[in-house]
């Protein structure tokens, strides 16, 4: 047996968005042999998941089911997939590069004497897998070697999911043998950070407001944008000095240091005291009406314009895209 298998991830009863990107990536690999990938769903009750997967451009759906797979555990999923892999001998096992995958797939690969090629951003002929090194400063090209399945995981957003629907694919079930004693970790229920304390330090998305907002009454503009993004609100020092926002939301040399995936600076000029607090952000977007504002020196994207027009437009555009 051989073939390309793509393992889809369950996010609150539905397939996670990045799983569809993994499907697209898997189909690139399988296209080299003129076939489509086989989807795999894992859980205790995988009806709904399988149904969802069946029309998304895969040739087949495999349901790996076992009561002990109701909640994700590394031991459970590794044992189940190990058994499956030994049984099916796939050529490729494609995963989305999610936190869950990072937690168990390296162990799974090691168990089979292989290594995961993780966080792949491009697949070329060969196939050759590209991933980032030195925090994005360099790229590396990898090839699978030796006998055994090739494990790879793909970076979020690197591959565009196929939007279309296809004819429903067949599904089959695989029941692994798992003993309760094998599962050594006990995961608890997911929870959000405490509502009272603002923890900008671990926020992934931040919208920060500066003196360009002019008055406290204008803050809802920025708060709406943050809500649409699912981001935390932060501010430069003058805003907190005026008491418009609490001091816990201040970013800068005498406030918090943050390193989110996205930092959206609205009406902030970019004085050094503020920069040192947010320069660690992976992506900085600046909106300011002054084209010479220093913030544009560190921004990845900038919009030179009136924030009172740009911010509402941005909020609308984000809401639209999330629907």
């Amino acid at each position, binding site marked *: 047996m051989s073939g390309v298998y793509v393992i889809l991830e369950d996010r609150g009863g539905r397939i996670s968005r990045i799983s569809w990107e993994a499907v697209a990536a898997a189909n690139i690999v399988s296209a080299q042999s003129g076939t489509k990938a086989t989807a795999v769903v894992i859980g205790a009750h995988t009806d709904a998941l399988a149904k969802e997967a069946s029309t998304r451009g895969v040739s087949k759906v495999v349901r790996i089911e076992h009561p002990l797979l109701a909640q994700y555990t590394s031991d459970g999923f590794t044992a189940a997939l190990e058994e499956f892999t030994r049984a099916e001998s796939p050529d490729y096992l494609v995963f989305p590069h999610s*936190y869950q995958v990072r937690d168990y797939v*390296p162990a799974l690969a090691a168990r089979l004497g292989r290594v995961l090629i993780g966080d792949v951003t491009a697949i070329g002929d060969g196939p050759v897998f590209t991933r*980032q090194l030195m925090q994005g400063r*360099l790229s590396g*090209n990898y090839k699978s070697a030796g006998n055994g399945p090739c494990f790879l995981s793909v970076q979020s957003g690197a591959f565009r999911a196929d939007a279309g629907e296809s004819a429903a694919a067949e599904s089959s079930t695989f029941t692994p043998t798992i003993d309760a004693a094998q599962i050594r970790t006990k995961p608890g229920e*997911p929870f959000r*950070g405490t509502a009272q304390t603002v923890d900008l330090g671990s926020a992934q998305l931040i919208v920060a407001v500066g003196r360009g907002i002019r008055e406290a009454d204008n803050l809802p503009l920025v708060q709406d944008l943050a809500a649409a993004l699912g981001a935390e609100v932060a501010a430069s020092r003058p805003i907190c000095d005026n008491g418009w926002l609490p001091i816990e939301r201040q970013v800068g040399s005498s406030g918090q240091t943050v390193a989110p995936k996205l930092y959206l600076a609205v009406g902030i000029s970019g004085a050094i005291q503020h920069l040192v607090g947010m320069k660690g952000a992976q992506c900085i*977007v600046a909106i300011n009406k002054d084209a010479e504002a220093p913030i544009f020196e560190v921004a990845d*994207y900038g919009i030179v314009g009136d924030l009172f027009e740009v911010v509402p437009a941005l909020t609308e*555009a984000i809401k639209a895209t999330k629907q």
Partner: protein
Amino acid sequence: MKIIVAIKQVPERDAQVRIDSSGKWIEEADLQFAMNESDAYALEEALQLKEKHGGEVVVLSAGPERAGTTIREALAKGADRAIHVEVDDLHKRDALGAAQLLAAAVKPESPDLILTGLQSDDLGYGQTGVIMAELLGLPHATLILQVEKTDTGLTVKRELEEGWFQNIELPMPAVLMIQSGGTKLRYATLMGIKKAKTKELRKVNAAELGQASASTAALEKITLPQKQKSTQIIPGSAKEAAATLVEKLKFEVRIL
């Protein structure tokens, strides 16, 4: 509590890296090196656990001779002793090869807890800790922000996507991969460095620990990525610019 912390010496975060003549690695001659960032958090977590529960913190690092500086930094910050696995071509090993080396060094120590950083700033596989756990037959958890010792083992706080968290209970011995930012790091002090001079630093040659299996994921070539980082000013009216920005956030930045 005997805690082993695996750390790695990596090129400084904002170093300008150049591809070497073989095309398969970087030019190391001009570089400054430092401790991998998430490893510093792993070390901090270990030191805090020792301060709370007593025991020993052992630093483990595989790398060439220059890694000694980073190991001594860890000793200066409070680790009790260190094991340096001397290997000159660590970058040629895949994550399995590296983990095999470390696991072999760890085995005779029989620690209660092994902490590693989440991923390295150079190769960034993010797998070494998980594979070590597999090779040693120990339970593990990744993306850990907080560690607490309980009567039955450990309760750890794990980071999930999109601002969610999860507590996990697991027995000891175990392997934890520590995420950056979960705690406050301590700075190196003069007193620490002086004390470090008398702490044990045992060197082990990689060859003594066994041969690595052939790499199953070969790094064939290193290239410069197409995109250079510079500010993109998005033109157009407010509405147009907003729409363009959303596109970019979705597909270039990949966060929407």
